[in-house]
């Protein structure tokens, strides 16, 4: 009887666990079921916290739902069940089911707090970039190197996303997740972002880096990430705080390069911007 009642739940748990253990980088929609592990130590730590709390909930869920389903199946009037109307409380049981959750929560809170402490440890950063959100795009400012540019939704997607454009978004690669000028950062480096905003609140988020921070006008928020040395490549994210009409259309793209490639890029860009700035300030000609 118990086994019969539990069977569907066990099956459900099996299927869910299958779903949740799918590869992190599958691109087709049906497989995107779980949080990705990401490419930084912090993002992996967050992922494991997420999985831990998820499984805690699954286990508690199985226990609680089993009891409920068991009752629903067994204690039916139609089956001649007679209610035990004297069963109105039981101090021992009540203490147990208060204490067990307390223990579970404490066990959860400790690693979570540890991760928080790490996240907030901003010491020893090697590169600082100021990020300014505006309606609707991002400005990146390499503070130590004088490199500075704007980053906005890439043109083709911008045309396709207009109401009634008639363009099928599926024909556009990385629809809504591509920009004209990506942020370029070195791998294996503790990069600090100083995040602020020019007009309303925005939020800077690249899921693979595991961190999200609000960009608040008039205040500077700090956030850092350190992409694994071997995880160079393109990472995408979006603004995640409602910021008006085009909130959906201010993506974030980060181009993570090896340290050498990054230095080359930085020098070249700094040079190019200096030259462009001499006759007319082209790079800052954004109509804000």
């Amino acid at each position: 009887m118990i086994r019969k009642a539990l069977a569907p739940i066990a099956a459900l748990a099996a299927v869910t666990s299958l779903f949740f253990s799918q590869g992190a980088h599958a691109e087709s929609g049906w497989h995107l079921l779980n949080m990705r592990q990401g490419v930084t130590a912090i993002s992996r730590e967050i992922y494991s916290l997420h999985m831990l709390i998820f499984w805690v909930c699954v286990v508690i869920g199985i226990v609680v739902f089993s009891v409920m389903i068991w009752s629903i199946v067994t204690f039916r009037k139609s089956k001649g069940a007679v209610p035990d109307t004297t069963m109105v409380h039981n101090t021992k049981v009540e203490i147990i089911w208060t204490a067990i959750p307390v223990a579970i929560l404490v066990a959860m809170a400790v690693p979570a707090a540890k991760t928080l402490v790490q996240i907030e440890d901003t010491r020893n950063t090697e590169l600082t970039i100021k990020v300014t959100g505006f309606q609707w795009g991002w400005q990146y400012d390499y503070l130590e190197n004088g490199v500075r540019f704007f980053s906005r939704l890439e043109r083709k997607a911008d045309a396709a996303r207009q109401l009634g454009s008639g363009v099928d978004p599926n024909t556009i690669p990385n629809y809504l997740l591509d920009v004209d000028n990506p942020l370029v950062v070195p791998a294996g480096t503790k990069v600090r972002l100083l995040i602020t905003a020019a007009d309303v609140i925005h939020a800077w988020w690249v899921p693979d880096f595991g961190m999200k921070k609000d960009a608040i006008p008039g205040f500077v928020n700090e956030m850092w990430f350190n992409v694994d040395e071997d995880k160079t490549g393109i990472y995408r994210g979006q603004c995640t705080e409602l910021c008006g009409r085009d909130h959906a259309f201010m993506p974030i793209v980060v181009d993570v390069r090896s340290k050498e490639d990054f230095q080359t890029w930085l020098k070249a860009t700094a040079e190019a911007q200096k030259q462009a700035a001499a006759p007319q300030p082209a790079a800052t000609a954004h109509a804000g």
Partner: protein
Amino acid sequence: MANTHASADADKYYVPHSSQWPIVGSIALFTLMMGAISYLNEWGGSWVFLPGVALVIFMFVGWFGTVIGENQRGLYNLHVDRSFRMGMMWFIFSEVMFFAAFFGALFYARNLAVPWLGGQGVKIFNSIELWKGFEATWPTSGPGHVGGREDGSFDVIPAFGLPAINTAILLTSSLTVTIAHHALRQGKRNILTAFLAATFLLGFLFVYLQAHEYIEAYTELGLKLSTGIYGSTFFMLTGFHGLHVTIGAIMLTIIWLRVLKGHFTPQRHFAFEAVAWYWHFVDVVWLGLFIFVYWI
């Protein structure tokens, strides 16, 4: 007086049959709000407030008039009286929470936001990247020196001038209203009328002095509603308080008139007590203001 007309049986809880005042009140509020909306959206001039204000006054006069009338006819037993009392208590509690929001804003701005803008704590980059040279002090109109005089400066009202006098006035008025209450309970009508009159006169005096203070703030100190966070918290807190004092003083006046008409008995005088509680509440809020806005 209540007992002389007793008609309903004593243990039956009075439920009015039907009443037009609630719907009048809803329409009044709606009209008032539409007036405010029209004004703020510049759909019309300030006259758009008039219909709403008129309706609200009409509603209050009519509704309270009805209630007073029913009371005079002895329809309310002590049970009903208790409902009124509890209702008033919880209403005052809601008012306390309204002020709490603004006090919260004051504490947050003063102890967190302004220091952060000055680069303290987790926000050290504020002073490096955004607000260079801003030093977190209180009072302040912020790193942008918003509002104030032409040059962005402003002065504040010292606690131990007019505000201290106003504190004395309100504390005294709390005392007088308590004396009036005791007099009412002992049936000493002369003391009652005199001290109640003193109470609302002190209330109006407070409002007058507060207005005086506002004028000085605006014309001489550069302290305006728009003078940064100091001006914002100062005027919103003292302004809402002043509004409550005005309302309270008006209510006291009405109660005084009702006393003159002989409306209350030593045992039954809910309206008097409600207004007295309200007055004490306004007084306590003022103490908070005096300490946290003017003094510290």
